[in-house]
């Protein structure tokens, strides 16, 4: 019981919400892409670009807000590359997403070498150019807005039909192609914000591979949340709880080796995906153009 009370404190809740922030942004980003019928493996790459350019922007302007916006913009550009190949050239979406991830991993050291003459990281940010709590609120606000749009607006209907029955969207006089472009750019912007909250909020600089699979965990949260905004948000909080427990337990001497703890979120993700907590149904036209 000692351990339990040590784990579940106010600080634990705070660290849970901190950890959930990038996940929420990324899985909401994934929602826009996957609901519109585009498989999104490239979240990780968009987040990395967002994290890098957010840190660079904050370093240059000394304002976390400018960095945050720039991070979103970087994610948007990454998504545009994906969109060009997936929507215009109709290349395989999973392959394209993987290429985007590789590109981001290679591109980041290229940029930091030119800008800061370092092999992969940006210099540390001082306190005034970082966030203290703001991204948490923005993430929750964004999921609220998306919840409303998804369930209560025409936009939500178009989004769902793009992924379920694209032909119906065309019949109703909307262009699936242009709407998918809009959704994929929104996706990129949100994923970029998720990355930005990593480098400006969770950490204090950009470091190589700082997403550590969060793009994929966000995707798992999306699947776990049945591609719906509210359950997805809950799934993000669930994964963040596991991560927070894992981080907290590293400080407590439990006798379990640290690498085992670090693997825990990934193991839970697989178990969740295997549908042992209930199955979920993918959008019907997902991956088919």
């Amino acid at each position, binding site marked *: 019981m000692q351990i339990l009370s040590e784990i579940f404190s106010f600080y634990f809740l705070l660290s849970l919400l901190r950890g959930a922030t990038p996940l929420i942004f990324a899985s909401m980003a994934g929602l826009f892409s996957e609901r519109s019928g585009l498989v999104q*493996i490239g979240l990780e790459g968009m987040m990395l670009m967002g994290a890098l350019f957010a840190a660079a922007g904050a370093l240059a302007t000394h304002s976390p807000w400018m960095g945050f916006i720039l991070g979103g913009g970087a994610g948007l550009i990454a998504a545009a*590359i994906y969109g060009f*190949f997936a929507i215009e*050239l*109709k*290349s*395989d979406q*999973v*392959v*394209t997403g*993987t*290429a*985007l991830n*590789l*590109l981001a*991993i*290679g*591109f*980041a*050291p*290229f940029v930091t*070498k*030119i800008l800061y003459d370092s*092999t*992969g990281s940006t210099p540390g940010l001082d306190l005034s150019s970082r966030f203290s709590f703001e991204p948490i609120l923005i993430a929750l606000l964004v999921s609220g807005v998306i919840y409303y749009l998804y369930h209560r607006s025409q936009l939500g209907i178009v989004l769902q039909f793009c992924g379920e029955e694209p032909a119906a969207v065309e019949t109703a006089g909307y262009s699936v192609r242009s709407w998918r472009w809009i959704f994929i750019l929104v996706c990129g912007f949100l994923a970029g914000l998720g990355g930005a909250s990593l480098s400006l909020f969770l950490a204090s600089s950009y470091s190589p591979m700082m997403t*550590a*699979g969060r793009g*994929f965990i966000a*995707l*798992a949260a999306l*699947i776990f949340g049945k591609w719906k905004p509210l359950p997805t948000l809950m799934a993000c909080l669930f994964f963040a709880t596991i991560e927070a427990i894992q981080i907290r337990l590293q400080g407590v001497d439990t006798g379990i*080796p640290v*690498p*085992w703890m*670090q*693997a825990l979120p*990934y*193991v839970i*993700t*697989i178990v969740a*995906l*295997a*549908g*042992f907590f209930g*199955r979920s149904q993918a959008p019907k036209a997902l991956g088919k153009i």
Partner: protein
Amino acid sequence: MIRSLIGLFVGLAISLSIVAFAGENPFSVFMILIRSAFGSPYDLGLALFYTTSLIFTGLSVSLAFQAGLFNIGAEGQLTVAALAAAATGVLLPEVPSPWAPLLATTLGISAGALWGFIPGWLKSRRGSHEVIVTMMMNFIAAALASYVVLDLIKNPESQNPESKILGPGYLLKDYDFVQKFFVDSPANLSLILALALSVLIYFFLYKTIWGYELRASGQNEVASEMAGISSKRWKTLAMTIAGALAGFVCVNEILGSSGRYKIGFSPEYGFVGIAVALLARSHPLGVIASAFLFGALQKGASDLDIETATITKDFARIIQAILIFSVAGATLIDFSWIRQKCFFWKKKGVTDANFE
């Protein structure tokens, strides 16, 4: 085939023009890339060493592709395989020579196969997306490796994060005739193994009924079920074989060259394997050529790191990514509009509609 080549050249051109942004001369960068792969027997040996591992991971990704699955878990599969081989060699150092490498290889590829079986089984029985599961398996494998190597079999005399050295019987040196051609380089007997395996997989996929069933279940699940082929079983099996193929990297890295497990030994062979398979269009024999291209690129990028001011070895990632993009894009570009524009391609009386 031609489209892959078009994609390849477009991709290379784009990559090299990016170099100009960093203030380097694209042409001299290209020459460094060429020289660093073919400059001397040592250089070529190192490039072939990378090629060997990339053939294994390229075959792994290709075989999964043929069964309609996307294996981005080759990295994790080769990690656990190398881990199993290294742990065997460290914990049982007394095993004599002909049996030791066989034992380590068997355990290594079994570990790789297990790492492929799990996502394959989850995919076919529980419908979990294999991309996310294999990605998670990669992270678990990395955690496992740092636990086993740093807590159980750590080399206390070394400053680097690496395991103890394997028992002397495990190393391939005694039989290794390949190494004699490339003095001091890590190229080894595994190259022959990789080439033989490519041919074997080619025969399996294209000349046996099993291979036919595997490909059929990848191309059309419903049709193959109708024909009495259990596509679920084949998807599980394909991922298992893919895992075993990626596991062969342990022969090249652990038994063939370094003789120990170094944390971070793989320059992401698993992910480059995706590019290799894509460029080869998942053909096992094409994988050989494509792996050599990427192996040379890997070697070249590490020389760029030394010889230029602004380009780091991660530049290889950019080139790989752009090549994947351009090959994936080029193979699907619809060339029909070019035909429609070219008047003399049209036969008399054939309208555009007929052409579609």
